[in-house]
């Protein structure tokens, strides 16, 4: 399961990076909602959370040195890093050597815990008759169907899945194009390299990718980013299986609701409906820890329902690189086909081999070995899950070796110097280049030297300033093997 956590880290940093990139006045407005503060808090690392909570009810600033004293000596570097992260997210402010929580964030997080502040920031529950059709199981099925329809479309198999719902809406296609997961016009959209990588991620990472794309789309359409962001944070903190009222929402928010519906992140009867239900795809984002395989508890009741809808491990990988996948889903087969040489198909089983050619094909698509391995281990059959490690080491090592094979040559943009008039000139330039760490290759005998592109400009300056004495000549710029 360690591998899985790696992928979570990835998406965590993505949303965190987005928040970091926001200017201060935007952050201030994002923090003005308790739901957003709680959602951001939940995305922090465990140590970060503890640091925030320790400071939450302190009104005075602490000296950084004192905060570091909280940690064991060998872990102080870790804690220092965490504080730095918190500062980048603008959750912690530093003032004359003292650190304290951002006052707005502190107040609103307190509100979130005590139930004060802006009451509707956690969504307004819908009062009125229940939709009898909607149960947790039904919502899970609905969300998975919708989500898979999108993935189907991406792998270009939508035509072979008659059970798939209505064709994808324009907004979904738009998002896919904007995020460069797919490219091309309406007639023939084709999947890109990042699209292949997207397919291999777990559902939570995929959902984050889509949501981040919304934020960028909102920026492009000059919508209020903070409004969109706050609405997203509100959505992720809603309760699964409960109906919420859409009446209090702004026009932009209602528009977003309609678009998220196409992805299966929420459910709404039709776009005019006054109520909506969040699905597990979006509520599970509130915790960074839940895995897509449903091994995290969504409540024992829903877990069985999730597994029922085919969201459990189905792949068996043998030490001889053979793959058996118990599935009849065209989507899953298509995804496997990205890196497995499939040989035969039965009603509920496909078999194949992981071969050098098939893995190389995947690598050419921009998929990394780690992504393949993560995908295989998260979707491993329960019988394999019980083993440690989950996948046979021989196969994972081989996949990594195949990847490294491609990386034996690393092209670097470089500059080649030759024809120094005197040994001294060469020595001087060489020493300077070494000092600034840009030398890729050098030969004192031949008075020749290769430096990186970045170093070239600096060396030019040096040479020009000493033009009188030197006659170093810069020549053409072939990329050189390093």
């Amino acid at each position, binding site marked *: 399961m360690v591998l899985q956590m790696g992928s979570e880290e990835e998406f965590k940093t993505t949303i965190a990076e987005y928040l970091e990139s926001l200017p201060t006045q935007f952050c201030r407005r994002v923090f003005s909602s308790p739901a957003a503060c709680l959602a951001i808090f939940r995305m922090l690392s465990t*140590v970060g959370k503890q640091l925030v*909570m320790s400071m939450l009810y302190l009104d005075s600033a602490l000296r950084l040195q004192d905060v570091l004293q909280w940690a064991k000596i060998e872990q102080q570097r870790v804690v220092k890093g965490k504080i730095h992260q918190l500062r980048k997210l603008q959750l912690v402010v530093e003032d004359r050597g003292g650190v304290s929580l951002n006052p707005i964030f502190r107040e609103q997080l307190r509100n979130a815990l005590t139930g004060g502040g802006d009451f509707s920031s956690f969504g307004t529950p819908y009062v009125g008759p229940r939709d009898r059709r909607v149960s947790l199981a039904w919502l899970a099925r609905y969300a998975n169907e919708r989500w898979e329809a999108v993935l189907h479309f991406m792998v270009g198999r939508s035509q072979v899945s008659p059970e798939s719902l209505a064709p994808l809406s324009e907004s979904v296609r738009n998002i896919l194009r904007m995020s460069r997961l797919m490219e091309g016009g309406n007639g023939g959209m084709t999947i890109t390299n990042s699209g292949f990588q997207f397919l291999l991620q777990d559902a939570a990472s995929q959902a984050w990718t889509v949501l981040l794309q919304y934020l960028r789309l909102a920026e492009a359409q000059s919508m209020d980013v903070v409004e969109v962001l706050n609405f997203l944070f509100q959505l992720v903190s809603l309760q699964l299986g409960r109906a919420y009222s859409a009446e209090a929402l702004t026009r932009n928010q209602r528009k977003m609701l309609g678009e998220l519906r196409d992805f299966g992140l929420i459910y709404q009867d039709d776009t005019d409906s006054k109520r909506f239900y969040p699905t597990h795809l979006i509520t599970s984002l509130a915790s960074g820890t839940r895995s897509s395989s449903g091994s995290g508890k969504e409540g024992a009741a829903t877990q069985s329902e999730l597994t029922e809808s085919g969201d459990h491990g189905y792949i068996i990988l043998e030490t001889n690189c053979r793959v058996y996948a118990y599935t009849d889903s065209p989507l899953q087969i298509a995804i496997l086909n990205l890196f497995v040489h499939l040989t035969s198909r039965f009603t509920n089983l496909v078999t194949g081999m992981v071969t050098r050619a098939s893995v190389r094909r995947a690598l050419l698509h921009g998929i990394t070995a780690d992504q393949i391995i993560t995908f295989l281990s998260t979707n491993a059959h329960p019988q394999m899950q019980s083993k440690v490690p989950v996948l046979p080491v021989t196969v994972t090592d081989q996949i990594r070796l195949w990847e490294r094979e491609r990386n034996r040559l690393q092209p670097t943009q470089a500059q080649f110097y030759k024809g120094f008039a005197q040994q001294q000139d060469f020595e001087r330039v060489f020493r300077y280049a070494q000092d600034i760490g840009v030398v890729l290759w050098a030969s004192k005998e031949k008075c020749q030297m290769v430096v990186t592109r970045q170093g070239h400009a600096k060396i030019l300056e040096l040479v020009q300033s000493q033009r009188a004495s030197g006659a170093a000549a810069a020549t053409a710029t072939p990329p050189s093997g390093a």
Partner: protein
Amino acid sequence: MAEPLESESSLLVVVLDVNAGAWAQSALPLDRALQQAVIFINAYLALNTENRLVVLGTNAHECRYLYPAPGGGAPAHDVQVYEQFRAVDARLLSGAAAMVDGAASDGAGHSLVSRALSMALCHIRRTLSSATSKVWPRILVLSAGSDSTREYISLMNSIFAAQKMSVLIDACKVVGPDSVFLQQAADITGGNYVRLDAAGSESLLQTLMFTCLADHYTRGILNAPGNELIDFRATCFCHKRVVDIGFVCSVCLSIFCQMAPVCSTCQTKFSFKIAGAGKGRPAAAPAAATASAPSAAGGTPSAAMSSLNLS
């Protein structure tokens, strides 16, 4: 025991001492303390959506579940943001109020902490055996009543059971002097013990956030607040007195303040070969301790009572 991972969830059992008599002597009224405890609990739930919670209330007469409410209501792991905060808060406050109202006040009051710990351990055991993924259990005791020496044996049994199950016990003494038993509980199980003095009682919440919120993983990184002085003295099994030096049965390790010919716990008859040990002076103890090794062979238990310096 595997190392805790960052993403793994916790199970926290909070034992709330709602002994009205004890709280009456506190600078911090019970309702204010409960409010602060509720915020702490919300903070705990906010840490991880999969965190599970049980709250037990205890006073001098009874011990009951406050959350999840017995017989119905949502299961403990049905956690979600805010909505769930509210459900927990309401249940907890009303349950505690009912317990306070229902109980006749009884002076300085000892609360049934050992009973609450036993219930907590049973609940943890049940939850762990049905859990599908790794859950790290711990107990937080918010204590107001003073130690009852009558509880010593059952309490120590609970503590050792907790140690064996690797359950951390954190203890926060809100009212009154240090609790010797809870100090030992925290020390043996690797938890934290804090006592609020009268001046600091307002800072209950901050103290809890700082010392008792961290999960198993984070405790590996952060320093525990130091407890330099812990009173490790035991209570004798015969008169429930705290003793510095006492006698220990070599068979069942029961502690006595006086020499006795027969162990009252395991009925072992002691053989006394050394003259002068019979008067029960601990000063003569080294002789008693070296007198004979326990030899339980042959069906005739012949055991010596050892003297143990407990300080």
